[in-house]
């Protein structure tokens, strides 16, 4: 079964001629089509387009004119990354029919390397949510238990990879939107350093926090995809050009002598089974030669208010462009301009998006700016300092990704505050702009995946990938029973 293979294995099959890109692509498309009604991982399947791209790849292979070593490999793309000519909805009613006339840089790089796009994955509306329940297109389901959430906001990408509806996927992570669903679905998910991957074409939620990353079933595969999309971009002034030093062939999984910090704040309020699983992996890392030491990230308690003030403030401005004038949903039967704005935005946006726009608008308002937004910026500086101090002593920081395993659909959606607090272990990496990865660390008694998070200093992706690989060795992959 080709869909059970990793990208690395599929590359071997392509190279040896045992499988064509068309065969591989078709198998993934078929499986995606048959599972999607149950899992809702994809908003749009790119059936015809993907097969065409695959045929073109096979033709290139025949001529010996491959675009890269990865030419012909398929993957899925989160629906907030603009794919020219292919609908990009952001999981929102306001962009339900939006077909971008241009490509995101990350998508452009994948195409240039010969990757095939299987489809666009489900997500919380504008990436605002931790469960994929706020999607205009309905929630995605956790393949380990379809009554449970897959996490979010990149829930669709995590589900697609976990259920072998794609060998890998792109996601985006603003406060944990890659790492948390990766943990809930038992796959690898990496959010790189802010600036490592161009944001051009990533529909903005919170510009200073958003970062594109990858999902895969192995650390090598996640690194492979990340390596393709990484790099500076003259269209993104916040991108930074750093050489990629973490290609699968460069990763050793060697943690001998690696100093690993274990922050006590990240184990408070964490379910015992999750905590125990992470502590057990830490022991195994020690056995593999790593040195662990307790550290303190003492401003962690401020991360939630700081994050939600900054993220909503930026979002309130980023989402103002959806006004029904130039593209996207426009409310019918409006009388005047203001009426058009009100109705379009009221009907086009879902509840959570509106809640955050209002929060952000409020915190930027005159008279409140200093008390909220400005204070949050100062808090952010302190959180960054926490990490700087920590990374002066350690190479990587290991924590749980989530406080619990996947919860039930509907369990938290009516309590936004509880939902926000559940992001506590992932948002600091976004505030500090540092890379973080979630790697499977076993399951709880109910068979639900547990994720282990490794955070590194800026541009130290290689260290956290090596560490993740060491964890992977002693954990093994998880496969849902779908």
């Amino acid at each position, binding site marked *: 079964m080709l869909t059970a293979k990793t990208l690395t294995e599929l590359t071997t099959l392509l190279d040896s001629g045992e499988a064509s890109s068309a065969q591989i692509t078709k198998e993934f498309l078929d499986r995606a089509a048959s599972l999607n009604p149950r899992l809702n991982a994809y908003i749009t399947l790119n059936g015809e387009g993907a097969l065409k791209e695959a045929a073109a790849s096979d033709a290139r292979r025949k001529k010996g004119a491959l675009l890269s070593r990865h030419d012909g490999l398929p993957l899925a793309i989160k629906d907030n990354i603009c794919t020219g000519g292919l609908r990009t909805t952001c999981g929102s009613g306001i962009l339900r029919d939006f077909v971008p006339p241009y490509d995101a840089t990350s998508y452009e790089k994948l195409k240039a390397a010969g990757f095939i796009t299987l489809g666009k994955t489900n997500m919380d509306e504008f990436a605002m949510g931790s469960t994929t329940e706020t999607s205009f297109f309905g929630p995605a389901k956790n393949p380990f238990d379809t009554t449970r959430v897959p996490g979010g906001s990149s829930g669709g990408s995590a589900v697609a990879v976990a259920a072998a509806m794609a060998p890998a996927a792109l996601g985006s992570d603003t406060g944990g939107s890659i790492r948390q669903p990766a943990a809930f679905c038992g796959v690898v998910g990496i959010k790189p350093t802010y600036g490592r991957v161009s944001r*051009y074409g990533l*529909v903005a939620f919170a*510009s200073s926090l958003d970062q594109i990353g990858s999902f895969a079933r192995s650390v090598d595969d996640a690194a492979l995809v990340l390596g393709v999309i990484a790099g500076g971009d003259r269209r993104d002034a916040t991108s930074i050009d750093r050489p990629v030093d973490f290609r699968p062939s460069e990763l050793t999984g060697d943690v001998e002598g690696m100093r690993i910090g274990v922050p006590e704040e990240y184990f408070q309020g964490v379910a015992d089974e999750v905590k125990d699983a992470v502590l057990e992996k830490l022991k195994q890392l020690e056995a593999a030669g790593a040195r662990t030491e307790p550290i303190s990230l003492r401003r962690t308690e401020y991360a939630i208010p700081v994050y939600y003030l900054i993220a909503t403030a930026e979002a309130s401005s980023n989402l103002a462009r959806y006004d029904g004038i130039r593209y996207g949903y426009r409310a019918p039967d409006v009388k005047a301009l203001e009426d058009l704005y009100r109705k379009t935005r009221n009907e086009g946006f879902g509840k959570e998006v509106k809640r955050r726009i209002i929060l952000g608008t409020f915190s930027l308002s005159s008279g409140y700016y200093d008390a909220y937004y400005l204070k949050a910026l100062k808090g952010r500086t302190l959180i960054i300092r926490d990490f700087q101090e920590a990374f002066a002593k350690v190479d990587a920081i290991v924590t749980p990704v989530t406080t619990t395993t996947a919860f039930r659909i509907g369990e938290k959606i009516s309590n936004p505050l509880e939902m926000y607090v559940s992001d506590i272990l992932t948002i600091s990496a976004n505030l500090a702009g540092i890379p973080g990865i979630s790697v499977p660390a076993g399951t709880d008694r109910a068979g639900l995946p547990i994720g282990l998070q490794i955070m590194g200093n800026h541009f130290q992706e290689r260290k956290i990938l090596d560490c993740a690989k060491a964890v992977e060795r002693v954990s093994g992959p998880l496969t849902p029973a779908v």
Partner: protein
Amino acid sequence: MEFEPVIGLEVHVQLNTATKIFCGCSTRFKADANTQTCPVCLGLPGVLPVLNEEALRKAIMAGLALNSTIATYSKFDRKNYFYPDLPKAYQISQYDKPICLGGFIEIKTGDAAKKIGITRLHLEEDAGKSIHSEDPGKKVSYVNFNRTGVPLAEIVSEPDIASSDEAYAYLQNLKTIMKYLEVSDCNMEEGSLRCDVNISLREKGTRPFGQKVEIKNMNSFRAVKMAIEFEIQRQTRALSGGERILQETRLWDANRSETFSMRSKEEAHDYRYFPEPDLPPVMIDQAYIDAIRSRLPELPAQRQARFVAEYGLPPYDAEVLTASRPMADYYEAVVKEGVNPKKASNWIMVELMARLDDPENVQAFNVQPLQLASLLRLIDDGTISGKIAKTVFEEMARTGGDPASIVKEKGLVQVTDTSAIEEVVDRVLAGNPQSVADFRSGKGKALGFLVGQVMKESRGKANPQMVNEILMKKLS
């Protein structure tokens, strides 16, 4: 009670970069609607701005010329508001860390010189243009995004301006400086220069400011002047009548020559400025600033002083000639040909400027510096008289012809042959016995008449000095 106006100006100058401030679209004026757009300036989902260095450089040039301090650290902010011509629903501008701070422009009204302070100069992007259908049955509005993202330098003055004349002089000088720098076309009708006025009245001689009113929608410097004058009268009347001035925005109505109140609802804007997360702060090192400074062209004030010192021109001449860079260039090109500088100045200020709508367009004028210089040389070497030269100039301005050929073709060469002039003089004396008698009886005025007659007879070609001499000789 007597009042005095306190006026500050906010001027938006479109920087004439080849491409827009945050994308690669052309900034060409008058292209077909919405043809100069791309995903970035249309504010499509997911696009990002990238600062055009040329816009930054030109803003710094402007700041240096306005005696501003260039900030080594500045940043961009978002100004949030909804309007159909603002595709992102925020304008990228600079709020608390502008690129240039402080500075001044020196102005002269009458004989009095004065420095008008500059508060700041910041960079921002222009909005698009809304066009409302003129067909009343068709309730439609259109938006043209060609202008969206064109770089603007907003220059805010201190409230140092005390009259409409000072405002006019300030704008005139600002425009001249920008044009010298070649950073903007400063064409108010095309919208490449826009000016808003802040004006209040206060009791003469006191310090506290009165309530400020903003005036917008003027499309010429003259309109700015008129709007200020109208507003001073309106506010004076109101205050004298015991009324209070409302803080409001008023629009200038060019047809009725008056200002009228815009809905005060527009005033309630809270722009919710916050740092633009898509653009890193702008860090500029001193070497970059120095490099730009070293390449600044000579500015109007410097050039004016040099014209006085180098060419011995009266300050008035120097001021008029340097008010436009092309005109000053023209003048220097004439002088470079070895022509007397004051003579060149007279000819340009009297003959040339009378035939030119806008000194900025002197490069397109039919008489180019080399031709004017040869015309002046023809006077100097006695080939033609100053009077004939005016006729020749007229012809040159009309046809673009060469002065020597015009003189030759039209037979305008000055007559310096003594016997030829004597012949004409004899004829005139014979034909005007009464004038000859008048002169001899002491009526000096009669000589002027006789000279005029000789010149007329010779169709202006006789050398006037020689005519004088010969007449005197024959009459005595």
